């Protein structure tokens, strides 16, 4: 049986939009190896860099926030980003768990 796990990030996005914030939606679209969050996991980011939800176990969120702010600044509607296996510098960017993920960023407007 499957549970319809819904972390209600889209519901939160609606509230953020109602509060006149710019919102970028980040969705995990592909994973390889042992990635911390499954495909469909979501996170939202506003123009101030506040975020809610997750696309990894905390490994790449900082970079995703930066990318999303860049998207807003450049007024780009969407972008795909990928994170590969990290080395020891897991503090920087990458997945310490050895997985790989692709994330789709899109503005909600």
């Amino acid at each position, binding site marked *: 049986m499957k549970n319809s796990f819904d972390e209600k990030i889209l519901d939160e*996005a609606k509230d953020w939009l109602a509060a006149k914030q710019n919102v970028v939606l980040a969705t995990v*679209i592909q994973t390889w190896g042992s990635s911390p969050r499954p495909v469909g996991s979501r996170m939202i980011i506003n123009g101030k860099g506040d975020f809610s939800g997750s696309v990894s176990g905390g490994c790449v969120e900082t970079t995703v926030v930066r990318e999303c702010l860049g998207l807003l600044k450049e007024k780009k509607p969407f972008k795909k980003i990928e994170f590969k296996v990290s080395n020891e510098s897991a503090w920087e960017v990458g997945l310490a768990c050895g997985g790989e993920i692709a994330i789709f960023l899109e503005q909600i*407007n």
Partner: protein
Amino acid sequence: MKKQLLKEIIEKKEKKIEFSIITNLENGESCVFEKGKSINKNFEEHKEKIISQFDKKKNGIIEGTNIFVETYIRPIKVIIVGAVHIAQYLVNFAKSLNFEISIIDPRGYFASKQRFPDIKIVNKWPMEAFNEIKTDQNTALIALTHDPKIDDPALQHALKNKFFYIGALGSKKTHTNRCARLEESGFNDEQINKIFGPIGIKLGGRSAPEIALSIIAQLVSEVYKK
């Protein structure tokens, strides 16, 4: 994603409709897809593949395309019998886990809107209540009153309708008596053994939130066993 689409998605979720969000990763276009309804013309060429992905209830990129599909399935229905203290904690856990909750309790002073805001409360005896709540094999029952005249009819309904999870609160002694009553009513051992009683996994705690946690943990583990 367009704001209008986001609105549509949230409406469909609230109505508990099964649907997919489909996104073209090449041009950023997205829309919702519902089985049996016409598909947005921009996705027409991948229609068959989108339907097949929808049927598999799997999220992901359709092989050989740039189409990402995310499917929303109907939440699992959880019926709580007894609007007691434990139920107040239980509904909070169940909400975070996205279960669809209904509470049955004929005792109006327990099942009040003030105690359970935003929850479907059926202020009737179980047999009448089940005329209002549609149930199937994907429904779970959590019986919390340990009052035979309220719990028993609900347990009998759940056993007859083969709920995937049936749990009943009460000590070992209470449960032994309960099993005897069910046997008298014509249920066999195999059926009676499907009831988790005393309900919940062993955590050791005895406070209302601790018992609620032990119940919800057992329920989630049963979801993945089926």
